[in-house]
């Protein structure tokens, strides 16, 4: 076979295998779900696109069979480390946002960079009636433990 044809053949065969391998593993219809990272970096944008769904527009939280903690006047936010670790690793059913970008698909969460996490933590700690003066930087977030799921055994 000619070299270009051979390449094209391999390309098609690989695409075929990729289809079979990648899509068989899905058990629902999310094969086209965007898992692209968030492009915005502002704390307010990140809050309104990701956090607000559960913690609500005014950071008031919500109560049902369980509850989403309110962020407005939440004393735990006195510790930026607590806030940043919660965003990084999740908590009590809340998805982790600190997984490496190539690992978020497994549990369908979203990757936030250290800078984005710093932005959203600073936003939450300075809004909804919170007025903490200390700001956290991307460098400080980077020093915290990040969730990093090892490969399957």
């Amino acid at each position: 076979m000619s070299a270009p044809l051979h390449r094209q053949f391999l390309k098609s065969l690989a695409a075929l295998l990729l289809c079979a391998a990648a899509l068989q593993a899905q058990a629902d219809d999310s094969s086209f779900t965007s898992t692209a990272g968030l492009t915005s970096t502002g704390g307010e944008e990140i809050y309104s696109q990701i956090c607000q769904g559960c913690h609500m527009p005014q950071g008031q939280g919500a109560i049902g069979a369980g509850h989403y903690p309110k962020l407005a006047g939440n004393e735990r936010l006195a510790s930026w480390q607590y806030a940043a670790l919660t965003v990084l690793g999740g908590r009590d059913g809340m998805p982790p946002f600190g997984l490496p970008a190539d690992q978020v698909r497994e549990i369908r969460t979203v990757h936030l960079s250290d800078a984005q996490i710093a932005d959203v933590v600073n936003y939450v700690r300075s809004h909804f009636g919170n007025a903490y003066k200390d700001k956290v930087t991307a460098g400080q977030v980077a020093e915290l433990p990040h969730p990093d799921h090892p490969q399957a055994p």
Partner: protein
Amino acid sequence: MSGAGYGLGFGLMSRRELFRMIGLTAGAAAMFQAMDSLGFAGESPYQGPIDLQGAPKGASVLILGAGMAGMTAAYELRNAGYKVQVLEYNGRAGGRNWSLRGGDSYTELGGLTQRCEFDKDLYINPGPWRIPYHHRGMLSYCKRLGVPLEAFVQVNYNAYLHSSRAFGGKPQRYREVKADYQGHVAELLAKATQQNALDAMVSKEDREKLLESLRGWGALDKDFTYGPSEASSDRRGYAKEPGGGLTARPVPSKPVGLSEVLDSGLWQGIPSGDSFDMQTALFQPVGGMGRVGEAFGRELGTLIRYNAKVTDIRQDEHGVTATYEDRNAPGTTFKASADWCLCTIPLPVLAEIPMNVGPDLSAAIRAVPYASAIKVGLQFKRRFWEEDEHIYGGISYTDLPITNIGYPNTGYHSGGKGVLLGAYIWGLNAMEFTSMTPQQRVQKALEYGSQIHPQYLKEFDNGVAVAWHRSPFTMGCYGMWSADARARHYDNLCQIDGRIALAGEHVSFLGGWQEGAVTSSLDAIGRLHQRAVAQGAKA
């Protein structure tokens, strides 16, 4: 819902990325193998009705949650002679087994209430919507409860695959994409075979068989090429379809070229019915998935205490006591006690309920994040997808955030209004949709969907949107197990802790599937029963 899917975001894929991914193909295959060994592609272990003979006289079980897991347990334990009581947060049975119908109202976390305005008999399933033929536990309970089933169409060859970045944003018919992809691949493989490129892998005897099979599989002509022909049109459809009389002569259609097919990324949608969970036949209950939960609820009657919010779970050497609040009389608390407890409360809710269990189970309960997911139901004034586009049931897939348009697999050709699943969203897009008001979600689903069906804007009537992270009774769609969390916590989540066992889809390898709830429940009550019998014998 369910599973361990990982998106490819095909709309974003460039040719170069495709090449890169080809290099990763072996990795993807290995990934599937790993997932297979983890059970994601596994079959239901359901082995027929459970045998719980010899229940100790007077033994009791408290069941928390009246979803599929809780009601399976209540039904079987009651039949086995146990004293059973079920506490349920909602005012209805079923949990995520649920259909929203005209006249229903639903208040999400945050307090926004939607009233469903669908016409009579029209519905949307905010949660699960299909039952594979091998989910034998679910099918068995449908049968025993007298819930009639009808076919769920997973693959409709006339539905669309759509990329906003290919073919000028024009949706393509599934049959065209599949036929063209398959035809081109078959042609390439045939040429490689004829040029002896595969001689090291294919014996001389197999060579002719391979070629013949490729001709049949790819609809190739006698020269093993794929092009406009009767054979290819018989797969992808005709430019002019055959008919009768003088105007009958068919005109073959022209396939799309290989490069365009590959660049479109639409090939990613071809295997949508190939995975074990999606293979024909699949079923749906007539009248909506919620019919199963409703039938269970009728069967169990007063065994279920509704509007009961569990606030505390205590066990000691004698039994288990749950404290609960009557949601209709806030502040009024009651206690329910039994010898044993089966707890099916979703993990994000359970994580916040005080419960005296050991550190291993406690850690496991907190180790599983719940997925963000959205479903939007849209009612239209007429069934234009049938009338204009000849799509009867099934699903169109798109790279737009809505990902799916699901057509009703029932009521074909009926003259009135119709309801579509207008969006089924995961990941970042789901989080964004969750942040919106229900009206905004419906509006967004309309805007995106109108890129595929322009009739949307003129024919729209009303809609409802359920964001699972706003669900007061689950606080998420379902448990997302990472391989790491699975390895460290799964067995601990399954183990009976004293007198308490957990069940639900989160305690299964069938994440998000109702079959996971049913089989985990049967597994748990089988083990509880053994303990009860052992203790009963001692007493």
